[in-house]
């Protein structure tokens, strides 16, 4: 510690211990400062994490509830002729029941404003009711219909009522109607099943994540089916069979590099090779799965190799000693012991693939798709891309839904990672 022992001008101590003692105060201060920096770094990361979660949960939790309006609907036989039940003018039914609830509303402008209170999805709900139970026709019943997104936002308090009318998406008159509906008990917040069961929509109150979740499922299915066997096979070859030479070195360097290549480059590969060269369909989970397979392979190979390395050599030697062939040794003894570790790696790789969106943007999985995909070649989008699409939408109601979709995505990730941890805890063996 030469730099600290420079004697100060005031006193010139003779013994080393005095020099050291003089500098101790300053050195301990430096020690405390350093410790503080370390602690601050950890606290800072924790604060970031907390902020992230608080901001997302705070914005998103309310999306799981959706405002509904109870209207007294008369299933008018005049409007609903049997032969055109599918194409009938259900919007007229909604209009009529609204006018009945607010008989004093006059004038086109006002009537249009009144109609805007109920979501355009109400039409589909009435239609499916009428199609399911044609006996409803001619009867008058109370129906809970989804409210428009703006009403929902106002009821949830995301729109400020004290702004001047011009800066609000909801007019004074509409607020008045909403308050009256609420006072009559015709306005209620119900669990938002549409959000979990519907496909995408331009209307926030009708948009759901099920289409994206199915798309993610099919994409991950392809990824898992391809990347796990291929990854395990490569790991087994490299660990158990390959001789150490130039060729295996090349493969190893390649795998390590691929693990660090930006994901978007895999998207470019998918676009150029799978779409343009092989002519596979755009936006399909099949192509998404292929691209993600190439992307997750390095992760799975690296994890599988370390699982194989953890199996002690004595197992291999014992198997070979009783006359097993190399392949029998691997398949009968080494693989079963390494499998939990490999599965853990596979789950972690799948979790990463589930959160990946950049390469999928390249292969057209960003399209606006309402239908729920039924197979691996149907156009689809995935959960993170759905989040990206919604995040771009200007409506306030989509902010809420984006956050809620993120919560669902994070929930899936937590479940997958927890599964990996449990698997590791349960099957981890210390040799």
């Amino acid at each position: 510690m030469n730099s600290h022992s420079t004697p100060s001008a005031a006193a010139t101590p003779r013994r080393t211990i005095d020099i050291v003692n003089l500098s101790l105060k300053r050195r301990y201060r430096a020690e405390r400062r350093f410790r503080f920096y370390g602690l601050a770094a950890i606290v800072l990361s924790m604060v970031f994490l907390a902020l992230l979660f608080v901001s997302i949960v705070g914005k998103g939790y309310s999306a799981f509830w959706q405002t509904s309006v109870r209207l007294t609907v008369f299933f008018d036989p005049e409007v609903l002729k049997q032969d055109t039940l599918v194409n009938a003018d259900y919007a007229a039914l909604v209009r009529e029941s609204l006018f009945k609830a607010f008989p004093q509303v006059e004038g086109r402008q006002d009537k249009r404003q009144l109609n805007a209170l109920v979501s355009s999805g109400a039409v589909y709900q009435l239609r499916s009711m009428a199609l399911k139970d044609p006996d409803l026709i001619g009867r008058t019943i109370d129906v809970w219909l989804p409210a428009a997104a703006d009403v929902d936002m106002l009821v949830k308090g995301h729109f400020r009522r004290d702004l001047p009318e011009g800066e609000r998406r909801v007019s004074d008159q509409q607020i008045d109607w909403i308050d009256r509906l609420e006072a009559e008990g015709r306005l209620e917040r119900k669990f938002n099943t549409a959000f979990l069961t519907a496909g995408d929509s331009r209307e926030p109150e009708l948009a759901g994540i099920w289409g994206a979740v199915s798309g993610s499922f099919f994409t991950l299915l392809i990824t898992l089916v391809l990347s796990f066997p291929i990854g395990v096979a490569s790991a087994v070859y490299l660990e158990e069979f390959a001789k150490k030479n130039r060729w295996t070195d090349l493969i190893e360097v390649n795998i390590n590099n691929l693990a660090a290549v930006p994901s978007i480059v895999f998207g470019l590969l998918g676009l150029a090779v799978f779409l343009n060269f092989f002519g596979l369909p755009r936006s399909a989970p099949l192509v998404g799965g292929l691209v993600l397979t190439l992307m997750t392979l390095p992760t799975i190979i690296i994890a599988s190799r370390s699982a194989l390395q953890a199996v002690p050599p004595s197992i291999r030697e014992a198997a070979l000693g009783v006359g097993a062939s190399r392949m029998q040794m691997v398949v009968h003894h080494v693989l079963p012991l390494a499998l939990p570790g490999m599965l853990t790696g596979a789950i972690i790789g799948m979790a990463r693939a589930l959160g990946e969106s950049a390469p999928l943007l390249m292969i057209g999985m960003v399209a606006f798709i309402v239908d729920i995909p039924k197979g691996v070649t149907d156009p689809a989008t995935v959960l993170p891309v759905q989040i990206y699409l919604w995040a771009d939408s200007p409506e306030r109601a989509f902010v809420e839904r984006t956050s809620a979709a993120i919560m669902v995505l994070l929930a899936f990730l937590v479940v997958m990672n927890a599964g990996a941890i449990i698997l590791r805890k349960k099957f981890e063996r210390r040799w």
Partner: protein
Amino acid sequence: MAPVSLLVVLLALSTAAYFFGRRKAFALDGRAEGAVKMHSRPTYHGALTALWCALPALLIFGIWLAFESQVITQLVVKDMPESIRSLPADRLSLVINDIRNIESGNFVSQTSNPAMQAAADHYRSLRSISRHALAVITIALMVAAALFVRSRISFRLRARNHVEGILTVILVACSTIAIFTTIGIILSVLYEAIRFFKVIPITDFLFGLDWSPQMAIRADQVGSSGAFGAVPVFLGTALISAIAMVVAVPVGLMSAIYLSEYAGKRLRAVAKPLIEVLAGIPTVVYGFFAALTVAPFIREAGGVLGLSVASESALAAGLVMGIMIIPFMSSLSDDFINAVPQSLRDGSYSLGATQSETIRKVVLPAAIPGIIGGVLLAVSRAIGETMIVVMAAGLSANLTINPLKAVTTVTVQIVTLLIGDQEFDSPKTLAAFALGLVLFIVTLCLNIIALYVVRKYREQYE
């Protein structure tokens, strides 16, 4: 027959072939007398039958489907009227696209055109023929292969060695996929990039100061010439990555030091997994956080201080990207710090150094090569990170190093140039591949250097 159901049939047939072969082997084994014994156990005979049944058929299945649409397109184009065939390549590809769209029942602009409709019908019938042919060929091949192998099953057949040989070939094939992926990336990106450089000279691309990749749809359009000077894009990438590093390196390094040198067991048990959680969050979530929480906050904070901050400022994107990289930096540094032998620390303590002096003057210098490798890997991740910048950084290329202005990055440009329908021949879309090539080369160099440094460092203390 749809490919998926054909695949199911193929798998079912191979399973059947397994039992088919195994039964014959069992029957033979039952007749074995005295010293004569089967060379391999019956399951190996079954496996051999199944493998020969499945592999050639699957190979044909894959190759057939991979090239089917190309071949059919060629055939359809050949039978089209002369007027369409003689179209230039880019118009022809549009026509082919339309035909495919009509065929799959989508709405297109020229639905009423009878020639197109006929071509689409032709396409459909050819594909139906192709699918039937594929089904017949593969199933026939499987049956033939199964029968042949079964007829060869005997006492002497070395089924186990055959099976193991085939499995080894499969293992080798799987391990080469990594190499093919790399080759595929290089070839596809390079090929399109070279086409781009034929239109725009490479020097203009690498050293030009103006980036506005708008190509004219009509010749007389205003602002019709696109500019492809990528320097502003590179500078924007560097700026955002630098901001990210300023956040991630000190925080990641200090938290790693604290966790491995100071923290007690309990703090470590809580803090380490929590930092790992940051690593598991998808980048699209960070992007959302940056765009909706951090960027408005920075803009308002700037407003309070009297600074004008762009709503898509580089600072917001860089800051959030830094947060994303903290766990990466921290876990790498943790590894390297732990790899420093305890004896070095003990030596330092015995000379009377305090803990922080030991860390700063002994542990860190010993770990510095590894940490530098880690920083390089982190830089490569920052450069290649896409979703955060797509959602939180700007689109217009400004030549500035002011972190409060909006800048754009390589990945943002790739995404915006390639999203949506594109024709594949305009320089606008090809520019994305040129940017991709630069991105790939830069990250590859960083990775190779970093992995080399890290490997050398690890060997040092092993």
